[in-house]
């Protein structure tokens, strides 16, 4: 992946190189054309000068013929010839030949003019040739200049790009950084940098609107859960107490007693679900202090101890490998809930006679319990997604575990290996 400016730089460089490449022949043709045009003009001037100079001599024809012969000898590149008929048309031409003035063998390019001049009212044909720069040399010089400017341009692009990306794109980078660190559950909106770029200002305004909306929705949802749970506490308490009173009536039949008992069980379940929802809302609201120093090993040992009877009840074998002196920073009440939930979960879902292994080391806390098949890890930590068929749980136990872990910035993992469910909490 490349960044935006690098991409545009590449396109610009390709375009510039095409333009510069095309400019080399164009410049050449242009320069060559100007060159030849100027030389033609020059040759005409020379022809005119020669014509004038000969006519100003006012000499006889014989003497003129002698003079022309002599002139032709000392001017090897030009020629004057007597002709009866004037040329129909002047001719302009370019030839390559040995430079007669040079002793070395050098082929030079010449621009020639063949025109009529009148000396003593007699037609003469004059040939004038002037040295022109060679094509190859012109091309080479132009190419060199072009490449030089091309390099200046590319380096300029590159330097400008770097400065632009720092300066112009700075508000964008700032927005991006702030978005990266944004967390919905912190419920804090982002203050974007003031910018005078229309696009960025628009982007920031749109993002701000979106975030405000998300935060408001999130807050509403959470408040709703919290308020709903809170409002439910009182009617649940009333119901529970009414059942208690019902149980004490003297004329209660055994059938009615069992109905009341079923109500008790259902009430216990609903109040637990309610408490758990409240707990989740509170963790999400970060209403807990996370700066206590917790002796994780003590908490784990206490929890195992408290549940020992339940292990026995189900005939489960427990082995624990708890390293002493494991201290972590966090909230002890939440950590206690975390450990209890994981162990209770293991007790509930291990078949009678199974094994549970609890391990604690510096890197984390883990619980292994024997099982038959792997569980769907996507559903495992989801609220109210019960994987087992029994309906005793609130369906929130593992969600709470996960929520407590993310509160502490710990990681939860689930694996199934060698007939064991492995739940890990990594500090």
């Amino acid at each position, binding site marked *: 992946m490349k960044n935006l400016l690098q991409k545009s730089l590449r396109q610009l460089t390709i375009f510039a190189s095409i333009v510069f490449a095309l400019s080399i022949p164009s410049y050449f043709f242009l320069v060559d054309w100007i060159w030849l045009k100027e030389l033609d003009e020059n040759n005409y001037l020379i022809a005119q000068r020669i014509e004038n100079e000969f006519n100003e001599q006012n000499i006889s024809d014989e003497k003129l013929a002698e003079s022309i012969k002599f002139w032709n000898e000392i001017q090897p590149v030009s020629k004057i010839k007597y002709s009866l008929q004037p040329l129909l048309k002047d001719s302009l031409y370019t030839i390559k030949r040995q430079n007669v003035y040079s002793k070395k063998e050098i082929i030079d390019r010449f621009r020639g003019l063949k025109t009529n001049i009148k000396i003593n009212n007699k037609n003469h044909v004059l040939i004038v040739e002037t040295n022109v720069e060679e094509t190859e040399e012109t091309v080479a010089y132009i190419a060199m200049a072009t490449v030089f400017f091309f390099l200046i341009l590319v380096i300029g692009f590159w330097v400008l790009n770097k400065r632009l990306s720092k300066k112009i794109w700075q508000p964008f980078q700032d927005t991006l950084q702030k978005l990266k660190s944004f967390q919905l559950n912190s419920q804090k909106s982002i203050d974007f940098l003031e910018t005078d770029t229309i696009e960025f200002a628009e982007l920031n305004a749109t993002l701000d609107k979106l975030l405000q909306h998300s935060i408001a929705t999130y807050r509403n949802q959470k408040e709703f859960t919290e308020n709903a749970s*809170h409002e439910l*506490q*009182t009617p*649940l*308490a*009333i*119901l*529970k*107490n*009414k059942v*208690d*009173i019902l*149980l*004490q009536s003297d004329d*209660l039949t*055994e059938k009615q*007693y*069992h109905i*009341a*008992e079923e109500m*008790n*069980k259902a*009430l*216990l*379940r609903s*109040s*637990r679900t309610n*408490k758990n929802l*409240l*707990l989740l809302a*509170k963790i999400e609201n970060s*209403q807990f202090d996370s700066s206590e120093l917790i002796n994780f090993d003590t908490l784990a040992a206490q929890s195992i101890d408290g*549940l020992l*009877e*339940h292990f026995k*009840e189900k005939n489960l074998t427990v082995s624990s490998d708890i390293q002493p002196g494991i201290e972590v920073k966090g909230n002890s*009440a939440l950590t206690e809930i975390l450990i*209890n939930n994981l162990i*209770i979960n293991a*007790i*509930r879902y291990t078949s009678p006679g199974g094994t549970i292994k609890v391990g604690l080391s510096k890197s984390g806390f883990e619980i292994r319990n024997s099982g038959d098949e792997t569980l769907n890890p996507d559903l495992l930590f989801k609220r109210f997604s019960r994987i087992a068929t*029994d309906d*005793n*749980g*609130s369906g929130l*136990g593992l969600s709470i575990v996960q929520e407590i872990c993310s509160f502490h910035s710990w990681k939860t993992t689930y694996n199934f290996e060698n007939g064991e469910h492995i739940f890990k909490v990594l500090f």
Partner: protein
Amino acid sequence: MKILIIEDEKELAKSIVEYLSEESYLCEVAPTFTEAMNKIETFNYDCILLDITLPDGNGLKILEELKKENKQDGVIIISAKNSLDDKIKGLQIGADDYLTKPFHLSELTARIYSLMRRRQFNNSNIITQDELVIDLLAKTVSVNCESIALTKKEFDLLIYFIGNKNRVLSKSILAEHLSGDFADMLDNHDFVYAHVKNLKKKLSDAGCEQYIKTVYGTGYKWEG
């Protein structure tokens, strides 16, 4: 014994009054902060059940006032707030106990019973029922002067029964008392059965009369 119930929820207060009146408790209800303040200024109570969230004030203020006045009333906070902070704060200010709503009335009765015992018998807190003697401070039980060894859970159960004499205690209520929050998560009704069975056996083996009666097939009642 006089009990003041500071609770704004009428039905809740009514149930508590109804349940407690069967004991020899005299109950009064104060549904608002102002009424509660008036009552505690004028009268003395053996026990105050205090709801923290009142329509016109914070219940913790009442507790602070009681402590400032140096009143000796026992206070049990009953709150819908399960927040640990409130619990710690309440107990720090000087509440004797803290109960989170919703709770079983038998749980409340047991707590009031223990609180009353603690306040009345500071030095030797001994419950006697014929041949059975329970020392609440030393946590020992003896029958006909012979001590019997009970597990922590069995002792806990025994006190719960004593605090709820002649009341029907269903299995689920006992399970909730023994396991607290985990009661519904663990299928522990056999667990309750096992503990009650052991307690009954230990008591009868020592020659104690069978006070724990089975009612309606799965419930229990301490008669005495």
